[in-house]
């Protein structure tokens, strides 16, 4: 008796996940909402790093301080995305970058808005914030090459 393989659509979802940012992350997002990018600073070993957390990735002791980052952001790495995951061509290539700050460990992953030929590793950047913010990494719309006026300015 031959049999026909049964395949069933199964989902493993809940309506929505809610992720709290932790005590220091909360302060960081509140500062971001005011247009300020801060970094965590380790009470014991002085390690300054981003994104913030209540422990130091270097000496594993408690971190309770956020400090203002004085240095300008620069581009540590980037990729020009031409196709989405399913292989479809994006109407406009999107640039994703790893943004770092001199003297600060770690960095941010975010979008870069600039003509592709002007994007180089080490280029100095500046964040462009959205008008209406909610305390999220997406309060920054993108980073652009510093000094350059982007078309919609």
């Amino acid at each position, binding site marked *: 008796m031959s049999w026909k393989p049964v395949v069933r659509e199964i989902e493993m979802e809940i309506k929505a996940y809610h992720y709290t940012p932790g*005590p220091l992350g909360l302060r960081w997002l509140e500062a971001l909402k005011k247009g300020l990018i801060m970094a965590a600073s380790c009470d014991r070993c002085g390690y300054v790093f981003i994104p913030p957390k209540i422990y130091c990735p270097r000496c594993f002791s408690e971190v309770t301080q956020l400090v203002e980052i004085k240095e300008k952001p620069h581009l540590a790495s980037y990729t020009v995305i031409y196709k989405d995951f399913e292989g479809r061509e994006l109407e406009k290539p999107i640039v994703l970058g790893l943004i770092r700050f001199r003297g600060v460990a770690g960095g941010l992953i975010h979008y870069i808005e600039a003509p592709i030929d002007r994007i180089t590793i080490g280029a100095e950047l500046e964040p462009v914030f959205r008008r209406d913010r909610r305390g999220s990494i997406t309060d920054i719309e993108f980073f652009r090459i510093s000094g350059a006026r982007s078309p919609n300015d």
Partner: protein
Amino acid sequence: MKTNIYVKSRVAIVGAGMTLFRRRMLETPQELAWIAARRALDQAGLELRDIDCVVSGSAPDAFDGVHLKGEYYSEGAGAIRKPHVRVFVGGGTGVFVPIAAWWHVASGLCRRVLVVAEEKMSSAADPHPQAVFRHIWDPFTEKPLNPNLIWIFALEMHRYMHKCSVSKEDIALVAVKNKRNALDNPYAQAAANITVEDVLKSELLVYPVNRLDISPVSDGAAALVMVSEEWARRLTDTPVWVDGIGYTLDTSYWTNRELSFPVYLKNASEMAYRMAGIDRPAKEIDVAEPYDPFDYKELHHLEGLGLVPRCKAAEMTREGVTQRDGDLPICPSGGLLGVGNPIAAAGLMKVAEIFWQLRGEAGRRQVKKSVTTGLAQAWGDLMQVGTVVILRR
């Protein structure tokens, strides 16, 4: 099954730590893991650089809401440029993490291991963490019936009540005992002075399970430091030895077997007793923390562990034998029912409690009798896994 092994080198716990257990915590899973890990390191007198391996455990990724969750929280567990493995046997995970850490040390590959268990159930916020349990069933033969988690416990509880003629009143005594014990536990989420009446009158969810028969949903983490014999002697003069480990997984087809007695737990505990050289557990185990996500489970597990004759756990509970001042104190910590149930962290909390009890460091929770041999046990999956560790001072 040859697991009667000659133990070349003994492995000891030298430090333990945990977070508060609460319904919702602000900290991220990484940060919860760190708080517990940091406290265990502090009690052991070590820094992260002294740790050469990390073993962690956490139950379904669907609670914290991160795929490959072990990769996400491992930083907080100390796995920074270090060997790290996350083990996962459902609710049995918390007691299984020290079991896996045991062979990390006993094999000689690691000497000072950070053992961390974490769970942040509150991330699965909408509609409710319990909704995650819609996805634990056989996707084809059970999930289409739209089961809720409490069905499986209620089915087993009712079978146990029927086979052992145990009443809901007897079972409620466990909730009363554990929630009262939790009043002396600074980490506890659901400590309370309640009566059997309160349990029977609490909201009926799935007969025979009422609301106060169940441990709460929680966020939390727990951690241990486990070291080789040589390092145990160097770091402390009161090491607690992990002298027995045992674990067994039964068939996934839980509806095809007798539910009133946990055979898998009998196998798991016998594996641990053989390794620890224990022939009469009921006499030689001084204090125990069996897994109590539901109150009837403490009775069910006491019988599976062979600490109490079959169907006799309710009677012994009635006689007060399992109280903190009884002959066989059970769940002096307050258990999952009183302290809280962040699944994997709940199991490791029980190991930490036995560690503190054997060192006489349990403060107001310290059991009356003097104790040298303790047992911690967790359970999980589809009524299916038993994990047991035996600790000795």
